[in-house]
């Protein structure tokens, strides 16, 4: 029996909140998604908004035909793997360069759903996948993203949920030799959003960039638990997440685990998390972890800062006649634009910025 199978058979217990992986998460607000006692429907809900595209196929397949490749100890993912009968499979043909983004959107039709998606980027393919998560939902999802050698995949997920949604997800990339995975994770909606953006490498020369922004207002819990496993030599990772929080009980959690195994000589990694607390009553937890088993690396570093609004920036802008609210809006847009500006779609970028503006206005920050 492979370690993978044995791992699948070993049930993780329902979390109590004392586990390291769950200690920040408000379990009571998960509507039982994490709890085997609660009934959840197996329901693929992603559709191709961008229509047919050459070199791209999206279909529903039997779960047996695409068994999970990666191992996990996350209880939600285990539950998804046990439960789902059909999997959404998105394939980008090898050597295909898909010029327009492949945009998937979400059509939830059930109360509580579990879904699995597999994205396979064939060797030397080049594509951008954008997943637009909107609406009200309770969803546990696993997305496995496999990049064959030399593939380049830009992977953008937009959590623009209504503020009642619970979204528990693992976005796991398996990056092959000389492949490049660039991801942008944007979480602005939802009641509880807990995403595990994780990466493993299967060949040297592989590279992953994990960028993210989150903006939490009144009562929102937005959690991102990054894990990058450097298990091959000469792979690169860059992590940069920026978050802002405003309003009472606004909450963010950022965990950045980077593991450099003994075999991973020539690793080059850096991770960064910056949080901006815009009002009292908000709380940001930020925990970077770097575990290194070899000294033969190019570089490994991390930084985490959490601070308040810079009054000097505000003064500078206001001294040019710009009113206080407008000045704050400019500074916050500027803070996020470093990452949002990389999405490369002006309509989406403006939509996200407007949502942030509106949320800011609502909490009066």
């Amino acid at each position, binding site marked *: 029996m492979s370690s993978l199978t044995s791992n699948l058979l070993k049930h993780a217990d329902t979390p109590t909140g004392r586990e390291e992986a769950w200690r920040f998460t408000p379990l009571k607000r998960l509507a039982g998604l994490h709890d085997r006692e609660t009934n959840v429907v197996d329901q693929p809900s992603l559709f191709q908004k961008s229509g047919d595209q050459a070199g791209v196929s999206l279909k529903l397949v039997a779960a047996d035909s695409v068994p999970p490749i990666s191992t996990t100890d996350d209880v939600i993912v285990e539950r998804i793997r046990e439960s789902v009968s059909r999997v959404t499979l998105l394939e980008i043909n090898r050597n295909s360069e898909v010029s327009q983004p492949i945009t998937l959107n979400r059509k939830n039709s059930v109360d509580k759903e579990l879904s699995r998606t597999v994205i396979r980027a064939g060797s030397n393919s080049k594509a951008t996948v954008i997943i637009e998560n909107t609406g009200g939902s309770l969803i546990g999802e696993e997305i496995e993203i496999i990049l064959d050698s030399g593939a380049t995949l830009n992977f953008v997920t937009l959590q623009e949920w209504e503020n009642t949604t619970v979204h528990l997800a693992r976005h796991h990339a398996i990056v092959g030799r000389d492949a490049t995975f660039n991801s942008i994770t944007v979480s602005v909606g939802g009641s509880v959003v807990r995403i595990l953006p994780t990466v493993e490498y299967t060949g040297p020369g592989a590279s992953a960039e994990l960028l993210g922004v989150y903006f939490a207002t009144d009562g929102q819990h937005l959690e991102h638990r990054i894990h990058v496993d450097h298990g091959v030599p000469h792979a690169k990772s860059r992590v940069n997440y920026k978050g802002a929080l405003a309003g009472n009980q606004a909450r963010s959690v950022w965990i950045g685990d980077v593991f450099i195994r003994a075999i991973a000589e020539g690793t080059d990694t850096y991770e960064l998390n910056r949080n901006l607390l815009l009002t009292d009553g908000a709380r940001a937890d930020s925990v970077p972890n770097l575990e290194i088993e070899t000294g033969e690396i190019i570089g490994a570093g991390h930084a985490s800062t959490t601070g308040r609004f810079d009054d000097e920036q505000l003064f500078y*802008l206001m001294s*040019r006649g*710009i009113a206080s609210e407008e000045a704050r809006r400019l500074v916050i847009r500027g803070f996020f634009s470093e990452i949002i500006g990389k999405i490369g779609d002006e309509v989406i970028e403006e939509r996200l910025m407007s949502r942030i503006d509106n949320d800011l206005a609502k909490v009066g920050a």
Partner: protein
Amino acid sequence: MSSLVIKNLRVGVETDSGLTEILKGVDLTVNSGETHAIMGPNGSGKSTLAYSIAGHPKYTIMGGTVTLDGVDVLEMSVDERAKAGLFLAMQYPVEVPGVSVSNFLRTAATALRGEAPKIRTWVGEVKAAMTKLNMDPAFSERSVNEGFSGGEKKRHEILQLELLKPKIAILDETDSGLDVDALRIVSEGVNRVKVESNIGVLLITHYTRILRYIKPDFVHVFANGHIVEEGGAELADKLEEHGYAEYIKA
């Protein structure tokens, strides 16, 4: 014709030992078309004067008045002071990451003019002003002050002065950190605005160097939180020769 009138202005900052008075009664009037140089040693309160007129929240007004054309400036918020016609070119302009110079300038011009400038004339206006200050057009796509050299920051301040056309401009150590060429370019910018818009200028400096390019009508020596001597341009020559020693002793 505008007048900035400062009367018996007393300003303090909060320190560990409570409110500490820095400006100890400043009297000064700056009218349109006049250039006043305020000169003094480090720590004399020159910058405090500049920042308290602009309304920086760090400073507490302890007494006195500041009016612009008879209207109380001290009651205004920072942006209202700018709208009233005051401009402060800062010694250390603040970085605003992710906000482009072009976006910043247009937002400021919109706020001050009460309506968004027409895009075509505005682009031309900015371009012309940048050319005169020897600035690369690519500059406008960079984030405000981020990664700017000292000279670029000061040129950017004067670019704003040219575009925003205040009634009274306060230039806080605009000459510091500039090489001769940059000092000349920046000074020419100030002189252009003086001629075109007849603004009043309050030039704060430690050194007499900039006064070779921007001719003051009045020179005020500042020490220990107030003006200790006043005169014409010739007073600057005296300072050039003798320094501030006699004022510090006093």
